[in-house]
């Protein structure tokens, strides 16, 4: 994830989270405010309802009292026994007193006349016969059975000469409509026995049966308060539901959500713009600086970063430029030092190489000068021997010079598709006789060649020379015999060749200097073999490394890019 993406994510997520938190707190605060308001309004409505029920009850009691004291009832009381003539009286009396329900009941509790259910005459109202002081009993809620079903009613009872007058008014939807409701509140009434209550209210009705006290519950967006309506025996007769509409709260919440969405979107857009600006101001110089670092790493030591500001990034670029300049100076100094060291090494080697043949030459010439005084025949012998020696040493000198010349004149590789396995097999075959030469300790070859090794683009002769040098070094390292293992394998598109011996091994310092020209650990080596190997591998775009520990052998590893087809 690059710097710009990080900046983008940071800014947008920060804005989004901040907006969400603000919106959540605002929504919670508003919800709390609405709930408080709802509680107040519902409480006021419940008080209003109770007051209204009390007033209605007083009114009903007054009207029933008026009927009980009427001439009509006195007439009925005056004709005990056969009340059939008064069958329709209750309807007229109820109409006169604006009562929904009215029953005139005989002393034996049988209905003389019923306004609400005329056909029920003669049936018993046993509840009236129970002992009670009806004169002082205020109106109460009662579930009244009618032909079309049961209704809730506010009922009052009065008596006259053992006759009962039970009258009342319905407590139903029409009654609820007479109440002045605050906006957003609605009332509905269900009897406890009503099976038609909406499913959402059923559980509240059941809870009321258990508790018989006000219960508030959330149904959808609305808040519903269930108020129990109990009868004379404190039995639950109905439940009044006060529903506070959540529409307003929902609208406000929706507005907050929309606003938060808009603000959040704007924040994200601003975040994107800020990230673009930040990348322009911050990440571009950093990216350029990173590019410069990469170029330096690739060897372009003259790369310089652009110093476009005076802030930390600008100072970093300047420091980077200063550092690269320092590095270039150091490298040049190092190269110069190494070059001097190489020349010194070369001079030392040359002196060493040349000193060996020069000493015999000097002795031979001095011997030849002294032989002038010898008889001609002896001189002739000395002369022959001396010139032979001179020629031999001169050839040695010539060979030394030739090797140095060869190293100096390493030819450019002629690349072609090469099967590395074939070169390995060819070299092993070439040195097979030397590995198994009689009279010297045995060296056992062990080839582990990958069966489908891709080809490499390489000069086969130079590659054979590289492998030959490594095999010869291995043979030299195993004076007491051992095993030389050569393996090839394909690792992620690169062909890897490893030559492992079980010889004496190398120290860490020897490993570090092993590829330096003219450095050798052998008594008679020129120190050019591995330098040539490294040069060839480098010319082929590959890499060579060595792993070794004293006494545990050495492994030379060469990696080359594969380009050719697989070996079938």
């Amino acid at each position, binding site marked *: 994830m690059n710097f710009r993406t990080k900046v983008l994510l940071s800014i947008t997520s920060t804005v989004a989270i901040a907006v969400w938190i603000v919106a959540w707190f605002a929504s919670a605060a508003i919800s709390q405010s609405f709930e408080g308001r709802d509680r107040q309004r519902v409480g006021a409505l419940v008080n209003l309802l109770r007051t209204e029920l009390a007033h209605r009850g007083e009114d009903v009691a007054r009207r029933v009292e008026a009927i009980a004291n009427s001439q009509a009832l006195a007439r009925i009381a005056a004709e005990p026994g056969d009340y*059939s*003539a*008064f*069958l*329709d009286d209750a309807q007229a009396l109820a109409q006169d007193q604006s009562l929904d329900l009215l029953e005139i009941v005989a002393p034996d509790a049988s209905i003389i006349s019923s306004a609400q*259910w*005329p*056909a*029920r*005459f*003669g*049936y018993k109202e046993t509840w009236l016969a129970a002992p009670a002081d009806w004169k002082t009993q205020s109106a109460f809620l009662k579930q009244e059975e009618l*032909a079309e079903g049961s209704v809730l009613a506010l009922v009052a009872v009065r008596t006259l000469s053992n006759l009962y007058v039970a009258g009342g008014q319905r407590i139903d939807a029409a009654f609820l409509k007479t109440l002045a409701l605050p906006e957003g509140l609605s009332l509905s009434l269900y009897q406890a026995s009503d099976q038609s209550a909406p499913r959402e209210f059923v559980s509240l009705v059941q809870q009321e049966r258990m508790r018989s006290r006000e219960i508030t519950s959330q149904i959808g967006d609305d808040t519903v308060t269930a108020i129990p309506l109990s009868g004379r025996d404190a039995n639950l007769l109905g439940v009044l539901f006060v529903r506070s509409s959540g529409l307003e709260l929902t609208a406000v919440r929706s507005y907050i959500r929309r606003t938060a969405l808009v603000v959040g979107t704007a924040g994200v857009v601003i975040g994107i713009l800020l990230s673009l600006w930040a990348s322009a101001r911050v990440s571009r110089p950093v990216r350029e600086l990173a590019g410069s670092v990469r170029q330096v790493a690739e060897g372009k030591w003259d790369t310089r970063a652009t110093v476009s500001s005076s802030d930390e990034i600008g100072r970093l670029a300047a420091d980077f430029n200063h550092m690269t300049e320092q590095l270039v100076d150091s490298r040049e100094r190092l190269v110069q030092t190494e070059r001097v060291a190489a020349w010194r090494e070369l001079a030392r080697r040359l002196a060493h190489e040349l000193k060996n043949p020069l000493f015999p030459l000097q002795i031979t010439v001095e011997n030849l000068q002294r032989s002038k005084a010898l008889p001609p025949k002896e001189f002739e012998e000395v002369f022959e021997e001396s010139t032979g020696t001179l020629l031999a040493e001169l050839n040695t000198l010539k060979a030394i010079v030739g090797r140095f010349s060869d190293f100096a004149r390493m030819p450019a590789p002629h690349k072609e598709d090469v099967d590395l396995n074939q070169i390995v097999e060819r070299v092993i075959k070439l040195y097979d006789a030397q590995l198994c030469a009689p009279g010297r300790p045995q060296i056992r070859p062990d080839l582990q060649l990958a069966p489908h090794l891709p080809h490499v683009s390489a000069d086969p002769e130079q590659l054979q020379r590289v492998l030959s040098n490594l095999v010869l070094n291995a043979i030299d390292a195993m004076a007491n015999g051992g095993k030389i293992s050569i393996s090839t394998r394909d690792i992620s598109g690169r062909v890897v060749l490893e030559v492992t011996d079980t010889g004496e091994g190398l120290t860490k310092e020897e490993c570090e200097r092993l590829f330096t020209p003219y450095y050798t650990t052998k008594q008679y080596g020129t120190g050019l073999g591995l330098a040539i190997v490294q040069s060839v591998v480098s010319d082929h775009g590959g890499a060579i490394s060595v792993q070794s520990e004293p006494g545990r052998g050495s492994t030379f590893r060469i990696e080359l890019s594969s380009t050719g087809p697989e070996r079938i």
Partner: protein
Amino acid sequence: MRPIAWRSLALSSVLAGIALVHAAVRPHYGGVLHMLTLEPLATLNADDPAGALIAETLVMLDEHGEVRPKLAVFWQSEGGARRWRFTLRPHVNFHDGTPLTAAAVASLLSGAVKNTTVYAAGPNVLFASQMPIVNLPRELARPRSAIFRRSGDSALIGTGPFRLKQLELGMRVTLIANEEHWGGRPYLDSVIIERSAHASTAGIIELPPNTSTRQIPEKLRISVTLPAELYAISLPANIPQSTRDSLAASIDRSAIANVLLQKRAEPAGGLIPQWLSGFDFLFPRSRRILPVPRTQPIALGYSNDDPVSRLIADRIAVNARDAGIMLQPSPLSAAARLVRIRINSTDAEQALVDVAANLNLDLNTDLSSLEKLYAAERALLADGRVIPIVFVSQLLGLQPNIRGWDQSRPWQLENVWIAP
């Protein structure tokens, strides 16, 4: 003053007093009688009360159920009651002036009696059948055997004491006196039968039978007819027998008769009233609760034109709940229905035939004896498809100046007159 003068004065006073008393009881011709009826007046047929004033039958049944002459003055049977001869009253005309002839009667009664051939022979109308028709005179006394024609506008043309002047269906029937009636001109000039006449102007007011005495104006004379209207429930066959029996037993008929209908009805155990058959008390009518498993509600249809029907239906529904039967009274048509059947005949056998016909019950049995009549009625009620409820009387209020009213034959208006 001389004694002769005192005697003359006293004699004059006595004569004047006798004249005044005589004037008060002597029938008076003229006047228009307004009748307020509860009938819907949706149709006018010979078996309607008003129709019976227009169309007459060959014979009639008196209050004791005996056959009496009417348009026929003599009849006799021959060949073991396979042939009947009815001799027509002479000089009788239809209201349109055409004479009542044997040929006209034979034509109008053709098909009136099943499996019987009717033909004219001089002044006689002959009825011939392969089987004995011992009850033919009673059958011919039925209102449906009345002799009448219909005019181009379907108005009844009969021979009765009143003829139709105007018919406004659903509102009013206006009759005027038949000046040429064979029994003599009726006292009244006209009879107007209405559904909506103002009570104070009506001479005779038919009141709902459930009207309490307190609700009847004091000046009206009350006339309560014999209970001759049957209220019964007709149930479809798909209602189980147990439910039908339970419903029949649950009904408190006494409460309906005595309280709801203010004692102007009697509980019905059978299909014809006690006063007519003499054995209605043998049928069970007391209330019993036979609970049945709760069933789907049963709609009980009743006539919306009859307020009494609704009251009875509501009470039946209340009673039925006690047995676990949910009845829903409805003014709409329903498979189960509360029916009201007017029993016009004073003959028990004929009344049962009429009731069975109204209820679409098959009654192909011999009814010639009281035992057979009882057995037939019992058989009709056996499956519980018909549940008799009450027999209801007609309640009529008569203004004080209405005279000649016969409570046993309330619609015989030819003898009614209005005192001045």
